[in-house]
């Protein structure tokens, strides 16, 4: 989880990823940020996030993103 937070902070250093729960619904992250994030996650965790998974529920919080990564790794 800590590693993921670090990755997220690389994408946007002005967001409190540990506590924000509405990254998408609250329009905190832009689609540009999400693409940067997807690209980094793909490379760091050796996964391939499909377009169908790019929904608010999977990106609203660090926990949700973590769960998505784990699911795709498994």
């Amino acid at each position, binding site marked *: 989880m800590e590693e993921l937070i670090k990755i997220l902070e690389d*994408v946007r250093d002005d967001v409190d990823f540990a506590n924000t729960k509405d990254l998408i619904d609250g329009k905190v992250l832009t*689609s*540009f940020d999400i*693409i*940067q*994030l*997807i*690209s*980094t996650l*793909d*490379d760091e965790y050796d996964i*391939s*996030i*499909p*377009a*169908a998974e*790019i*929904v608010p529920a999977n990106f609203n919080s660090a926990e949700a993103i973590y769960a998505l990564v784990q699911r795709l790794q498994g």
Partner: protein
Amino acid sequence: MSLISAPFFIFMLCLLGAYYNAGEKHQWKVLLIGSAFFYYCSNPIYIIFIIISIVSTWYLMRNPVKSHFIWTIVINLGLLIIFKYSVNFGVHDLIAPLGISFYTFMTLGYAHDCYDKKIEPSDNIWHYALFISYFPQLTQGPIGTYQEMHEQLIKYHPFDLQRIKTGGYRIIIGVFKKLVIAGRVGFYIDTVYSSPKGYSGLTLITATLFYLVEMYADFSGYMDIVCGVSDMLGIRLKENFNRPYFSKSIPEYWRRWHISLNEWFNTHLFMPSVTTKWNKKVANILSKVFPKAKKGTLRLIVPTIIVWIVTGVWHGAKSSYLGWGIYFAFIMLVSFCTQGYVKKFNARIHWNPENKFVMAFQIVRTLIFLSFGEIIYRSEKFSDTVTIFKNIFTDTRINGAEIAAAMTPFGNGNQAAASIIIIAVLVVAQFIVELAKEKDERAFTGHRYVYAFLMLVTIALFGVAGKSNFMYQAF
């Protein structure tokens, strides 16, 4: 059936009567019959093509496997391409079925969402038929999603006078934007753009700025009318505009203009392209050429080019539309690729993005880049685009006679000046009204009666009769 016509008014009266008198179980059926009647009156023979699309898509997507999804794309995109583009190659001279672009987008969006398991396929073909054919959004959008629309459409909506009032008010705003604002400035733009060669830079700049006004007034006016009509039926359509000309960058502008189309492209073409394996490979190759660039940014390049070329060509098989698409692909890419550097640069020169002057500068800059794109789009041919750009930057004459000549559609001399002042006042008034609407969306307070009355008077006095075709209807 034009939305600004006596037959449509009568149609709405009959529909509202039947709709609110139908029982709980039958209300949505009234809407389906009304929509079918609307389509039949507008485009009788072509109703067959929307029926083919509805039946085939509904049937195939009941079981949303890959082969069915591909067949749905082939059938729907095939019909769209046949009607939209073959006419350019002299294959036939048929006109395209009403709203084919928009219902094809809705159909493909539905099929894609079923295939991705984001939604449950519709189990009732009549419900699905209503989702695709719902008459307010059929002709020019907004492109509704199944998630947003289907429950609203089949739910029972009891009569509510407040809704009729707010809907009616919004319709008046739309008619006003279309007939008074878009209709008047349209004359000037047509005159200048039909043969731009002899005009000075100033005249061409004025015509281009008027074109921005016309596009917004025409298209958002149409949206006001259909949203108002739908409000009267208790059904909320997606908002397609969010004051786009106040955007601080071109990417932001495209999030605030024709929102439903841009969201559609984002969900169904851009994001799927970004996440494909081949795009990842392209980004890996590009990262060898640009080792300092972020991989995420490199993954944006090909999808951005694809989306913008498709968006350009979607407007029609014309070189100016393709040029417009390439122009915006370029601007978007420059914006994406320089985002990091711009942020650092702004921080270094203590440029505060919240400062009002900074924001004004960004808004004006966006409007200039947008205008360049719209010059490409509006030009009849490529040589005209070159002429317009050349004259804007080299012909600095201030030629009173020329401006007066271009203004003749407004009237002569003082009459023309008066018309222009009235238009300017109305545009400002319109903006103020929209701000008021934003603060108080549903309430219908006294001042709105006064404003509605003033708008009706202005429509009667200044409305351009016979100009009730909307720009996007052609797509």
